[in-house]
């Protein structure tokens, strides 16, 4: 078959996007309900804390990215257009352009900023998914992906304000250098992103990136637990989140 379901969706998605674009923008612009903490008593709220100073201390380090991509069979296309990103680095300016000013501390702004899916508390991406292939797992707050269900419509790609989602324009498998047989690859026509290593968590492991970071720049844990690393880190230092004005409530925090 020259064209499969996802290929078809890819083509038709372009058209549908034009029509549905209005709908998803509405979703973004609609007034956000305030973060209701009482509603999730007893549940976990998994979060990641990135210590920018520690991260910047090792220039050119890509340990976390490599570990993640290796574990999750993330393909490497030599082509920015097709690039699949789970965790990646970009300039501070790009990551936090609204809170940037000329005289920010250089140790924060000089190096690239580590970016990944924010696992927002109020994610716009899940709301637009027509098949519920992406949804927020209520018990721990992970924004999940079910690749069995994804039809490649890319509404979520459009809806995510952080560019955290990538679409497989091409068959990824030939572009995976070392395949990890314990983790599925994806196929052409599905969207993918960071899942906070939900499979590793299920096995009692830490996320791959956290484990790989020798500097201890990445902390991971439950925000509802006052004893957790992340809570302690946030208690002690000032932290920022990306684009807080959108009301998406990211669960990735940056210590500055």
């Amino acid at each position: 078959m020259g064209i499969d379901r996802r290929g078809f969706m890819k083509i038709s998605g372009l058209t549908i996007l034009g029509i549905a674009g209005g709908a998803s923008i509405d979703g973004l612009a609609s007034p956000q309900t305030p973060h209701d903490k009482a509603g999730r008593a007893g549940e976990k709220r998994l979060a990641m804390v990135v210590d920018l100073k520690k991260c910047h201390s090792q220039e050119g380090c890509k340990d976390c990215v490599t570990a993640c991509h290796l574990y999750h069979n993330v393909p490497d296309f030599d082509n920015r257009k097709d690039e699949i990103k789970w965790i990646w680095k970009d300039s501070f300016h790009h990551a936090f352009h609204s809170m940037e000013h000329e005289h920010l501390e250089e140790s924060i702004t000089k190096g690239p900023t580590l970016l990944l899916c924010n696992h927002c508390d109020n994610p716009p991406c899940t709301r637009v998914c027509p098949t519920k292939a992406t949804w927020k797992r209520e018990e721990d707050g992970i924004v999940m992906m079910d690749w069995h269900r994804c039809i490649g419509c890319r509404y979520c790609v459009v809806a995510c304000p952080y560019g955290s989602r990538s679409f497989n324009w091409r068959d990824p498998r030939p572009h995976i250098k070392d395949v990890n047989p314990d983790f599925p690859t994806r196929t052409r026509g599905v969207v993918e992103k960071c899942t906070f290593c939900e499979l590793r968590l299920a096995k009692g492991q830490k996320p791959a990136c956290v484990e790989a970071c020798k500097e201890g720049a990445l902390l991971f844990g439950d925000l509802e637990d006052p004893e957790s690393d992340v809570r302690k880190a946030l208690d002690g230092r000032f932290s920022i989140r990306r684009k807080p004005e959108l009301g998406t409530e990211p669960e990735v925090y940056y210590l500055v």
Partner: protein
Amino acid sequence: MHNTGKVIIGLLIFLVIAAFPIWYAVAGGKTGDLPELEKAVKGENCVIDSVEMREIHMALLDEWRDEVVREDDRWYKSMTLDSTIEKSLTRSCLGCHTSKADFCDRCHNYLAVSPYCWDCHVDPKEFK
């Protein structure tokens, strides 16, 4: 008979198409020997009765995949094995039936079934 030529040609086309399976079997020389499957490496029993498994494995896998991905429910209590196993195609199924080629594919090829599991899930043999 009138328009004999055309009618005969039409009938021949019809008969050739209608008898396709017969001459295909004759020409192909294959009458469909039953596929032989690789033996499981561990034990005699599958996670459910093996005859039933043959009929419903696809539905079971479908159920599993939803339970695992969507409900974070990853363990299956097997009555036949009297133990709990992980709901995983690559780790549990292929753990016993170590060769996709000699187990899964045999029947699937025989029946022209092309499951799309393998579009994403990886046959460990292929990469190790």
